[in-house]
């Protein structure tokens, strides 16, 4: 690879905050027509790196280092002429297409704005007809019809919105596109489409892409090179096939191992214990040492420097010469069979409306004692409405709900808190920020007359130290908050637990921890779980049976092995196909 093909290069890019260095100096190099993936958990500094490259850091943060676009080189600590670079040299694609487009402007206008802004800076004058034809071209490039230009974002699906956002991002013909988690907010089937659009643009335009992602499945199919960040520093860097197939840094290896497979169930889910230390609390020595199985005294005192390893990679680890024992992850046998003579929860002919629209058209569902039943479907399939009807948070318009043979009242006001409890998706809004963990748990314990002293035991049962009773939610990480939310839901000893996308907002390493926790709690307490998720790989790991929901109706139901290995309904098959991780690497596809 010669140097002229480099479209973006950053040397010693570093981000400082008021409390010290957040991102340690990192080198970034993107070649034309290639993708550099920046991978890491929340708190690794990957998004800050992306923002530093586009000059969009919070004013309280300061970036240093040297950035070069083609022939133009700038020192980040001096005044970089960002307005003349954004849109034409570099462009940013954000995660959430639902908020990154202006809701009050037609899509065409939003793309045209960028076209005009870039043209104005280069001194070109475009007639409105020329602008219009560029907008149409861009929409065509992302696989959308020209008529989309006249529509508002709310008239489009999530996938189409993200395509419009891509069209706007490339409207000024940038050399580099920074895509910050571009598919995270999308369904599995739409994710594939959006990635395909990005790949096609890259082929046709020679676009350099910096892909920021926590999802190794996404990275595997797209990346040429990978940078793995941990606690604001590079842990490992190298060609995608080296990093993904033969990781040298223990962190990379554990991150890969935490990714749940779709095609088989693991004996044991491997999370990474602990969480990423925040900038002020990074340990001396290797930042990963407290979570690393290989850590020695040297790791705890000396910061490992990046050093070259075989096949073009560089790694910051004292043990880079020690080959990692690649643990063959055990496949579990078939999931335990659950006696299913009398289902605990029975849902018959459930109908529900949002306003005048019928969301659920007569759903039947059963959850047996001690069983974990997954409900899967795309967004809009009604799976969350189903969960909320069972929880009592949404009043169904018709149908029967019974729990243990007794009718479950439709309205929450008539229910017993010991019947059904729920764990929500977003760990950040699931806990009252003003209450300590102990206060929240004691309140939930009091509901079923359990003594307040049970709070400590409850915390320990979800894997948190009992001293956490005095902490407030803001002192906890996302995974810890979700553990508290689970403890609170279990406090009244409910007969059924609902998990509504309870792990989808978590990092993969934390997700594995929480899934393992749910499995353990089910085994210990025998509490059955209704598990709502869009992530089929997660269902494969924890569920006994699965219900496939499509547009408010059940299309298939059965044991997980059966549905996943031999789907009967074409929709189940297509969902599974869309979730299939691209096992091939980018290079091998061509």
């Amino acid at each position, binding site marked *: 690879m010669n140097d002229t093909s480099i479209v973006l290069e950053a040397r010693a890019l570093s981000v400082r905050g008021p409390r010290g260095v957040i991102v340690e100096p990192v080198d970034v190099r993107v070649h034309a027509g290639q993708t550099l993936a920046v991978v890491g958990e929340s708190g690794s500094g990957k998004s800050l790196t992306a923002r530093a490259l586009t000059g*969009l*850091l*919070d*004013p*309280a943060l300061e970036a240093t280092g040297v950035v070069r676009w083609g022939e133009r080189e700038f020192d980040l600590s001096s005044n970089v002429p960002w*307005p003349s670079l*954004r*849109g034409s040299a570099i*462009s*940013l694609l*954000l995660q959430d297409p639902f908020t*990154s*487009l*202006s809701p009050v*402007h037609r899509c065409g*206008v*939003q*793309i045209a*704005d*960028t076209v*005009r*802004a870039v043209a*104005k800076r280069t001194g070109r004058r475009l007639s409105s007809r020329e602008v219009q034809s560029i907008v149409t071209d861009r929409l065509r490039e992302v696989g959308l019809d020209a008529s989309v230009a006249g529509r508002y974002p709310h008239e489009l699906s999530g996938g189409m919105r993200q395509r419009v*956002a891509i069209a*706007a*991002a490339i*409207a*000024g013909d940038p050399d580099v596109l920074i895509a910050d988690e571009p598919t995270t907010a999308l369904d599995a089937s739409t994710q594939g489409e959006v990635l395909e659009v990005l790949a096609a643009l890259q082929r046709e335009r020679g676009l350099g892409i910096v892909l920021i992602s926590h999802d190794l499945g996404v990275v595997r199919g797209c990346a040429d090179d990978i940078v793995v960040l941990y606690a604001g520093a590079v842990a490992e860097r190298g060609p995608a096939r080296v990093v993904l197939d033969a990781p040298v840094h223990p962190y990379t290896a554990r991150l890969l191992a935490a990714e749940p497979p779709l095609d088989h169930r693991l004996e044991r889910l491997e999370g990474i214990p602990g969480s990423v230390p925040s900038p002020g609390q990074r340990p001396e020595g290797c930042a990963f040492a407290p979570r690393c199985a290989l850590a020695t005294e040297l790791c705890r005192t000396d910061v490992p420097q990046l050093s070259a390893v075989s096949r073009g990679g560089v790694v910051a680890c004292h043990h880079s010469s020690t080959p990692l024992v690649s643990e063959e992850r055990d496949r579990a046998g078939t999931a335990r069979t659950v006696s299913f003579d009398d289902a605990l929860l029975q849902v018959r002919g459930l109908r529900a409306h949002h306003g005048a629209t019928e969301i659920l058209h007569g759903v039947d569902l059963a959850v047996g004692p001690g069983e974990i039943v997954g409900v899967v479907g795309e967004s809009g399939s009604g799976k969350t409405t189903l969960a909320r009807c069972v*929880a*009592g*948070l949404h009043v169904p318009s018709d149908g029967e709900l019974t729990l243990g043979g007794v009718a479950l009242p439709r309205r*929450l006001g008539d*229910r*017993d*808190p010991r019947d*059904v*409890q*729920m764990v*929500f*998706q*977003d760990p950040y*809004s*699931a*806990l*009252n*920020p*003003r*209450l300590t963990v102990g206060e929240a748990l004691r*309140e*939930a314990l009091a*509901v079923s007359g359990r003594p307040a002293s049970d709070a400590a035991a409850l915390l320990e049962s979800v894997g948190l130290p009992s001293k956490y009773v005095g902490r407030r*939610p*803001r002192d906890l990480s996302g995974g810890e908050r979700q553990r508290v*939310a689970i403890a*609170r*839901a279990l*406090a*009244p000893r409910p007969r059924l637990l609902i998990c509504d996308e309870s792990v989808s907002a978590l990092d993969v390493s934390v997700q594995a921890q929480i899934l393992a926790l749910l499995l353990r709690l089910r085994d210990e307490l025998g509490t059955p779980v209704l598990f709502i998720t869009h992530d089929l790989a997660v269902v494969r790991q924890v569920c006994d049976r699965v219900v496939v929901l499509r547009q408010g109706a059940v299309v298939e139901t059965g044991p997980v092995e059966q549905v996943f290995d031999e789907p009967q309904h074409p929709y189940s098959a297509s969902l599974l196909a869309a979730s299939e991780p691209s096992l091939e690497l980018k290079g091998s596809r061509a």
Partner: protein
Amino acid sequence: MTAPSTTVIALRPAPRAGRGGLPGLILTGGVLAAALLLAVLGPVLAPDALEQDILLGVTPPGTPGHPWGTDELGRDVLQLLIAGSGSALAGPVVIALGSMLLGVLLGTITGYVQGWLDFTIGRITDLLLALPVVVVAIVVAGVFGSGYWVTVAMLVVLFAPSDIRLVRSAVIEQSARPYIESARMLRLSPWRIMFRHIVPNVTPIIVTNALVNFAIAIVALSSLSFLGVGVSPGSADWGRQLDDGRALLLSNPAASIAPAIAIVVVACAANLLGDVIAARAERKGSAE
């Protein structure tokens, strides 16, 4: 040209420096505390504020014994200003706290419970919001007499509707959050959910709004005194003093400018303190 609406270009970091800092808090809080202290100590510091000296009449600032001069009736402007701080500030404090109390109580209940109660109270607040304050004040003064506390009570009622609306919308926003839904699934009592879970989380908005109301009330009450509704003629009050001193603008400018500046300074301090508290709450919220 309209601003480019794609985030690629339009996203510029908003300058936030200087807002919500400790100096701002100390400065605005200090001004307010000093004003309130003055109001409490007024009777001690200026016992003879209302003492007239008709023979002396109006004198300019710098007159021996009267550093800020005197008004038409020979009353000392500085003493009058100190004594007038009591009625200028006591009413606004009552108005801000009273409407806050009504706002929190009714806003929280209507926002959380909704239904017919929300509808009924909603229409009453609509009605009150549609009334012109000054016209109502004059009518109320005509019916109940023009006492100071009658006016204050009327302003509490007129200020409450916007407080109720504000609290209601903040409560509705919180009610949809998972932590409230969890509390509902635990079947905690509605009172507990409302006043232990929701209200503490909307407190920054309530406090900020009360301070803004305090500032508006100072001006409103002074305006009403200026119009002759509110404090009785002859008593010490900033709005009254402003009105009385208006005619003396050439002979003793201090007679009207001093109370005007006092009103502006206190109202601005209350407003800015509200801003500082809002900014601090916002910053704390983002840290959570």
